[in-house]
């Protein structure tokens, strides 16, 4: 399944500057694995110690939040465009 992954600027230093990556994956967990093989630093930054996507990173597939599509169970279709966007919170200490 060939999908396009769009990488936001703050993450590009971990993808040798690439803003768009083509890869083959059928689900989000598989995509994280595939990205990790090519870009281990990227995976370290977007996943926590348990290998889960970090809490503040949102994933969109063709502009829809993947959580509305079934999250990790969602099966990518050929040509899907996947967008990683940090959820921007103000926080409070």
């Amino acid at each position: 399944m060939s999908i396009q992954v769009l990488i936001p600027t703050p993450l590009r230093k971990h993808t040798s500057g690439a803003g768009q990556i083509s890869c083959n994956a059928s689900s989000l967990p598989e995509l994280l694995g595939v990205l990790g093989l090519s870009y281990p630093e990227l995976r370290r930054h977007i996943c926590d110690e348990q290998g889960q996507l970090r809490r503040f990173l949102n994933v969109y597939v063709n502009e829809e939040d993947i959580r509305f599509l079934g999250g990790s169970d969602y099966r990518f279709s050929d040509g899907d465009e996947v967008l990683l966007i940090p959820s921007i919170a103000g926080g409070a200490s």
Partner: protein
Amino acid sequence: MTERYELQCRECRTSVGNRPSSVCEECFSPLEVTYDYDDIRTCLTREAIAQRAPGIWRYRELLPVADEYEATLPIGFTPLVPAPQLARHFRSRRLFLKNDCFCFPTLSFKDRVVAMAMAQARRFGFEVVGCASTGNLANAVAAQAARAGLRACVLIPADLESAKVVNTQVYGARLVRVAGNYDQVNRLCSQIADAYHWGFVNVNLRAYYAEGSKTVGYEIAEQLGWRLPDNVVVPMAGGSLITKIKKAFDELVKLGLVEPKPVKIFGAQATGCSPISTAVKAGQSDIAPQKPSTVARSLAIGNPADGHYAIQAITGSGGWAEDVSDKEVVDAMQLLAATEGVFAETAGGVTVGVARKLFAQGRISPDETTVLCITGNGLKTVEALQGRLELPEPIPAKLAAFQEHIADEAEAVAV
């Protein structure tokens, strides 16, 4: 330039200094402004604050602005008023309204946060400021950008109330209506911020901007005679205001400006967009996003960025979150207006409606001091009252016609 603050990652605590930045580049968690409280303790006293002009800048040491920053606009210091008639409805004995319906210059609490964003736009040399907004932020950005001589580009969901649209355009801001909900507008803004060198109020300036919300908390404490309330009820959209009010109370305690005291934090949402209250009621620490559908458009954020922290603030304080139907929202707007003479926007209806529920559930004790945060003016959302108020037929300008017209008014007494 003397800056007594800097950005730090909320999760991994990496310090990043001061720069326009949306997230920690190490772990993609949110950034938070931190201060040197030991330094602030030496100069910020109740007496020093009392000498200063009313407004958010009287707490300037606790805001992300350099000592040299010339802050002139009289923003904030809105009335904290007792609400005895409304209190009777709730069987409360000490109820207050923190009334940001009258915030300068655009009649909502967003004037406070945008003041911080404008200071940063100057500091970092941006010529264009942008934002994604459900309306109030759009108004505040457009007005303050005009005042500061900056260009503004404001993105809103296409279905916003007409007053919020006019209130943005009149200042000369570039308005972009997006066919979609706020969450879609916000995602688009993240992408735009990535591509353009603009100061995006709620993206790369967000950590600074959100600090302005703390002034609601400082003012409540000062206006209560430097005491913290027992309970505060706060409307929630992205969840930032409620976390910042808590931060403000914690800071005042840390600085010795108020006696330590547990404050229960209560969050209010409309049922048609209630990701945070749903999570609190289910005992979850993270939100599940929703597709909003509510009359309270200013709160219609289905994927609240600060949802996780709002849940922490609420549950950690022993508070609770509730939500109310659209009918209850409008009922509460009318109740607030009819009892206290305050015409709040739909978000105010959400807060008052939820407060009513919390009192009825016994979650707020009647004898405790409770503050309801009213965050925006009702003139901005008059559409919500459609069908509720009947426009009377005109009468001839004759006394007899008036008497006939008023005959059903039992208390009308002719002199």
